[in-house]
């Protein structure tokens, strides 16, 4: 698939940045479960943190295609960095831009573009957090266990159950310094250890009505849009993980000699490479197709779910087989593929699980 010139330039720039800057510390950060703040700062300077934000608000106003290509390039080297960017752009900035009021946009979007804040995302819509209305405030209690960008210490777009009678939930933007909101350390998670996934704990946390994005109990439609865009971005990350893993494995297989020849000569290795190449190409086509549909203002909901399902499952399979190509070495933390494998597991279930994606796809088709 031929990318336009703008997109190609961005791709080259990020490929270089990933290789020259991100690569150096990626394993160290993973091992320490530390966030890649240096990467984020430099990506902000390159405009990547304002990808979804219009130019008149200081953003880079990239189309979906360019965002996906950027995430793919970053994720080939560090999926955690890519996820932080994707969450910030799709799950945080986008709903504020599309559904927030003017005051909110002014308050958050310029800072988001500059990387002064890196926003997070919490989905508590399924009643993990209890909400009580008191005057003009909502009082929150409970724990949300799987918050994206919890540790970037920015404000968080949260979907919270505001209706006692299960009539719906609402979208909020929660400032990082509101009393009663606590962020725990990194979730002890298999992969994406540098992405700052964590918990939010609400203890009598009072959130003003002014923090509502859109109308009360109208969160469902907002969440659906956020997730649709999120699926495309996450597919781009999965694509990068799969590509990065197999690239490493191919390089290794060319160097590793067993039975007096490079193992790349063996049919069982070549078959894995062929499978990976096919799956990656199919993922790329599905993901780019979903992105282009969105950029053309077409309905892209089914395309996004297909991309996400296929990208996630392929990333899991390809990273598993990449370890296999390395053999015993692939199981050791001295080599990079085990990290790709761990990251792929998490990417596969972000936004929604493969089971949920299949249901979305069937529902879209059946009507």
């Amino acid at each position, binding site marked *: 698939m031929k990318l336009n010139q703008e997109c190609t330039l961005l791709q080259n720039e990020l490929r270089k940045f990933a290789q020259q800057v991100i690569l150096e510390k990626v394993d160290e950060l993973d091992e320490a479960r530390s966030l890649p703040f240096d990467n984020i700062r430099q990506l902000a300077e390159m405009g990547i943190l304002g990808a979804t934000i219009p130019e008149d608000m200081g953003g880079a106003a990239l189309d979906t295609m360019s965002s996906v290509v950027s995430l793919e390039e970053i994720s080939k080297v560090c999926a955690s960095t890519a996820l932080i960017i994707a969450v910030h752009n799709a799950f945080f900035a986008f709903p504020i831009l599309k559904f927030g009021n003017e005051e909110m946009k002014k308050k958050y979007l310029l800072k988001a573009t500059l990387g002064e804040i890196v926003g997070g995302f919490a989905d508590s819509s399924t009643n993990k957090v209890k909400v009580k209305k008191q005057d003009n405030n909502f009082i929150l209690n409970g724990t949300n266990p799987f918050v994206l960008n919890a540790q970037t210490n920015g404000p968080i777009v949260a979907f919270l159950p505001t209706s006692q009678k299960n009539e719906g939930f609402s979208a909020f933007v929660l400032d990082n310094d509101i009393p009663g909101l606590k962020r725990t350390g990194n979730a002890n998670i298999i992969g994406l250890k540098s992405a700052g996934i964590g918990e939010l704990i609400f203890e009598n946390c009072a959130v003003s009505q002014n923090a509502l994005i859109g109308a009360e109990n109208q969160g469902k439609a907002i969440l659906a849009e956020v997730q649709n865009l999120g699926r495309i971005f996450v597919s781009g990350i999965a694509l990068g993980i799969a590509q990065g893993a197999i690239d490493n494995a191919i390089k290794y297989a060319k160097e590793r*000699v067993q*039975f007096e020849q490079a193992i790349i000569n063996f049919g069982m290795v070549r078959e894995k490479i062929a499978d990976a190449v096919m799956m990656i190409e199919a993922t790329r086509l599905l993901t780019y197709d979903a992105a282009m549909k969105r950029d053309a203002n077409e309905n892209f909901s089914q395309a996004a779910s297909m991309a996400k399902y296929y990208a996630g499952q392929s990333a899991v399979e390809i990273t*598993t087989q990449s370890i*296999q190509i390395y053999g015993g070495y692939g199981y050791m933390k001295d080599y990079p593929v085990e990290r790709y494998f761990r990251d792929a597991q998490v990417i596969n279930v972000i936004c929604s699980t493969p089971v949920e994606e299949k249901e979305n796809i069937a529902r879209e088709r059946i009507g």
Partner: protein
Amino acid sequence: MEYFFSEKEKQLWQKAHDIAENMVCPIRDEFDEKAEFPLELIKEMGKQGMFKIFIPEEYGGTGAKVMDMCIAVEEISRVCAGIATAYSVGALGSGPIVYYANDQQKKKYLPKIATGEELCAFALTEAQAGSDAANIQTTARKDGDYFILNGVKQFISNASVSDVYTVLASTDKARGARGISTFIIEKDFPGLSYGKEENKLGIRASVTSELVFEDCRVPKENLMGKEGFGFIYTMRNFDRARPGVGAIALGIAQGAYEDTLDFLYKHDLLSNQYVQKKIVDMATEIEAARAVLYATARMVDSGTKGFSKESSFSKLYPSDIAMKVCSDAVALMGPYGCLREYYLEKRLRDAKITQIYEGTNEIQRTVIALELTRDQGIKVQQAGGK
């Protein structure tokens, strides 16, 4: 499914089950996280007779039945595959002594291995000899009443905690695989030390490190069997040991399945047919894996000769199923499946090694392909012509 365990087998299962639930389960997270060998537990398992099942009766064991190994290892692995690996390395290490050592050597080493007083390990792999196992560079040079060993063994399970090792070294490099011999090496032999300890994705309770030989002096009575037969002994020992890896994989799959079913029930997700289909496929594949494993174990224990193909089946299929079940389980449990506290992520990390160690699944497929074509009277040139 009913596999008609004997009374003795039922008792062994019960013992393994009690150990797994009461002793392994409480410590499994801690030892995975710290990547530490559970020495105290392994010693206690020895006291309870768990190593006796690897050793023949005349040397203090209970019969060295492959079926017994499968029953015990599967049940421990259902709770923790890292600890199951730490335990079952004893079978891999003692196997060559059981089958290829002379009576004097057996008397000297096996009774202590049977009680768990001494732990044993097996050392074949080297940096340049992974799948190409015959390519080992470690040498054993004759010097009077001794062999002098030099070389570095890599990725050796339990290396730093064992007392006795069966080690392969080349006594005649010119003869390639037919110049390899097996030695029984004690940890106190001068010139033996431990090198780099590996930081692994999974089975972290099983420590893995280098075993370094620097002019290590080994008495010539510690040569096992005939000089130049080491590689053959090893391949035959692998034929008996591979079901052990199948059992580890099966235990992982079974544990993941049980946890997932429990999770789905608690989250009220079992009425969903997408979910039902996945769960049913898991259960079916696990049962198929168990069937091939137990059938292989019974076949080996029957005393039949030649079971390389079946032995490879019994490792290949359960290990592929373990990976599939764990991956599918993550897809079902969603983000929870990725969090340490739900334990599934550890099973997934552990499962990956079962496709790799004791011969990658590609090597298993090569072994099976060779046997299948041989069965049909077809001669096929194998990789590397070896």
